[in-house]
């Protein structure tokens, strides 16, 4: 465990991380927790997600130099709402339970607060997403629950919205 932690690094996301992000988005296990379900949707999501690299609003976790997770702030385009933003986190299923999500979350909160001076960040997750445990650990509060928002294989799942105040 200690060895793994030593190898973990967090850096700004590069556009070249696209290959890894695409691989995770195409992973059926991860897709359950995401809105994507086909190649076109993955392509569109990638364009949107990686577009925030140019604002230095995205972080990549690496293990031995290889990307293993990403966290991105989806900065708001309008002034009246630019004091907060949505963020998303994803960890390579091969490297879960190694503290990658924890480190990404801690760093993305820091980035939002210190660099972007945001007052609040929030995320949306499917009801059975294991990330919920981590969000609660960091004192995120739930402010919305939309029943039946996601439909997968004729089964419905709620989406939950969690936020954290940074001021």
């Amino acid at each position, binding site marked *: 465990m200690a060895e793994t932690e030593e190898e973990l690094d967090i850096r700004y996301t590069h556009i070249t991380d696209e290959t890894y992000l695409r691989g995770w988005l195409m992973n059926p296990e991860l897709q359950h927790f995401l*809105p994507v379900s086909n190649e076109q949707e993955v392509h569109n999501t990638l364009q949107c997600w990686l577009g925030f690299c140019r604002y230095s609003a995205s972080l990549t976790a690496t293990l031995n130099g290889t990307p293993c997770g990403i966290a991105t702030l989806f900065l708001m*385009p309008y002034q009246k709402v630019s004091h907060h933003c949505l963020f998303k986190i994803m960890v390579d299923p091969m490297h879960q339970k190694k503290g990658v999500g924890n480190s990404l979350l801690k760093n993305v909160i820091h980035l939002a607060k210190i660099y972007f001076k945001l007052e609040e960040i929030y995320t949306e997750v499917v009801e059975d997403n294991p990330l919920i445990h981590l969000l609660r650990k960091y004192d995120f509060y739930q*402010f919305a629950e939309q029943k039946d928002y996601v439909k*997968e294989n004729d089964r419905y799942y709620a989406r939950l919205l969690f936020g954290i105040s940074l001021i």
Partner: protein
Amino acid sequence: MNRQKKTLSNLSFRLTDSSDAPYLTKWLSDPEVLHWFPMLTQPEVADAIRIWIGYSRLGSGLTVEHNNVPCGMATLYIQAYEKLKHTCLFSIIIQKDKRGCGIGHLLMEKLIKLAQEKFKISILHLEVYEGNPARKMYAKLGFAEFGRQERFIKGKNTYLAKVFMQKRLI
């Protein structure tokens, strides 16, 4: 009451098209109207209108006319993801001096019908800011609150919450 009857008798509804954009620009140039939207500057308004009118290509926008002149619009932001296609967020705007006559209610009824019949949507949802009088209309139409995000809009030392509401159509 008489005013309501007079207004309603001259209303017609059609799909929104790109020629409606100048009306949105005009309505949203009023700071009192813009107060209930997230945009502030002219480029932000232009961006929001571009997105709004963009959905007319899918035939998911409706324009209401009074005496053949647009006085309100509503659009369904059709979901791009298969897993979410049964749900849909929408926006609505009614020209300021045509409010209180039931036009918004009628436009919403037409939009719900469009959502159900053309796009097979089963959950329609919206985002409205705290204090917006339109919230009463949404409640009357059967929309129920499922969340609330405090301090969503930031003004000059003031904040407004965003309220999430949805209605099941099936």
